[in-house]
């Protein structure tokens, strides 16, 4: 009973957050609404006793992705976006149609065919188990990902360095 109430509350919050994120013209408001959605999602994960996933959801989506979005928005010129031009009001119909089409043709069959467990209590995914899984069968994947991320990091450093060097040369010329 309590679980069901919690589920519905979280679900409503999540959907409302997502809707507000799409509808709001003010980009910052949109991002914060999106984060409310993420937080509600983390709550849903907790309800499923997937506490590690919930923590990662908060850590990655709110702590990293959200902040990244905010940074990106702050770098754009029109932050508030409180004029009508920032999101075109027309064309909502086609957007809705596209969304429904995607849902019907791609996601609905996937959901129908998925083998959902009857009860949430049957799974006990502990952090330790997850760690073992990551280090045992999926270790190659993990290492490849780590390599990729390292390469990306070095690439980012190189890009930033290059810009700085160019800047220095430019200023020397000037």
């Amino acid at each position, binding site marked *: 009973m309590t679980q069901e109430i919690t589920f519905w509350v979280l679900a409503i919050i999540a959907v409302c957050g997502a809707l507000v994120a799409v509808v709001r013209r003010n980009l910052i408001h949109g991002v914060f609404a999106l984060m409310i959605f993420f937080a509600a999602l983390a709550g849903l994960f907790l309800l499923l006793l997937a506490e590690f996933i919930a923590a990662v959801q908060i850590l990655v989506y709110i702590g990293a992705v959200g902040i990244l979005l905010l940074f990106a928005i702050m*770098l754009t*010129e029109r932050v508030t976006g409180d004029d009508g031009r920032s999101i075109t009001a027309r064309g909502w119909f086609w957007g809705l149609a596209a969304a429904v089409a995607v849902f019907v043709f791609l996601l609905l069959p996937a959901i129908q065919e998925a083998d959902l467990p009857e009860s949430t209590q049957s799974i006990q995914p502990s952090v330790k188990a997850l760690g073992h899984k990551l280090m045992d069968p999926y270790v190659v994947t993990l290492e490849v990902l780590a390599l990729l991320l390292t390469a990306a990091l070095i690439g980012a450093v190189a890009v930033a360095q290059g*810009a700085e060097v160019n*800047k220095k040369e*430019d*200023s020397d010329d*000037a």
Partner: protein
Amino acid sequence: MVAPNYELIAQDGLETSLLEVSMGPHHPSTHGVFRMDVKLDGETVVDLKPVFGYLHRNHEKLAENMSYLANMPFTDRLDYFNSMTNNWAYALAAEGLVEIEVPERAEYLRVIMAELTRLVNHVSLVGFFVNDLGALGTPLMYAFREREKILDLFEEASGARMMCNYFRFGGLRCDVPAGWLDRAREVVDQFPEFLDEYEKLLCENEIILSRTQGIGTLSRELAINAGITGPMLRASGVAYDLRKVDAYGIYDRFQFRVPYGEVGDCYDRFMVRMLEMRESVQILRQALDGIPEGEIMGKAPRVFKPKPAEVYGRVEGPKGELGFYLIADGTPKPYRYRVRPPSLINLTVLRDMCLGQKIADAVVILGSIDIVLGEVDR
């Protein structure tokens, strides 16, 4: 010095716009009602416009409608930290109009007062400067404790702590009370001990070093060309001190050295002041040892009415060369009265020093210039 290169900013790929911040007149670290119109690229200062005049109170015109003596208390209020040296510069100028012999004791007391003022100014400046760096007032509190002791001495001698109004044309208003010299010696003797602690707290702190070294560098050439004086000029590597050059008063009788820097950055300006305090203590000790008994006022006319003449009197104030330019026309009032304020002239290079630095550095650089808005705006 990096000029504001707007093209560079535009070329940088991302089209970013500049953020204009109007720092002041109500900003905690503009040292009064001073405004800096800063253009920021991110946190980097690309343009800066100092705006002052909020505290303008017509000092110079006012003086032309007042007798020479009546203007003396107004000079206190120019640089309200250093009323004694302000008085001295004005007295020096007026004494140039009328030949007055200043008695020996008065000359010694003038030196003592001026050097105590220098201690007051430098010690609190260092406190404010470190406050601008972000220390939560701890050095400032230590500085103010020492300043209080000196201000107590001033109050005892002149009756007021800050607006001393103590110098007169041809001497001083009154002699110091009995026992004052002993108390002054006590304060002076304790001062190096305090300076040791102060230096230990500040001079080797890595954060202060990295915040101030290489920041706001003022080149020797620019410093000379812009007419910078005082510790700021000496920090840029010019050992120019009016106490040595003019040897006004009786400064030629004292042994003291003039510290000077090489780089001309904020750290040099800060350290030159720290070192100058020790030299001031040396002068004070010599002056307190050598002070004779005797008269305190020379034979000044009861009504000060100089013959037509022009005169410029200057002293090495704690902030730089403080000069008073007077034209007398034979009446008891000056025909023209002009102040050469070291704060204002030192402030003129603010933009040159701040460009290309971070906004946090702009505050630090302003703090290292050592301005008092009462003097800048007059």
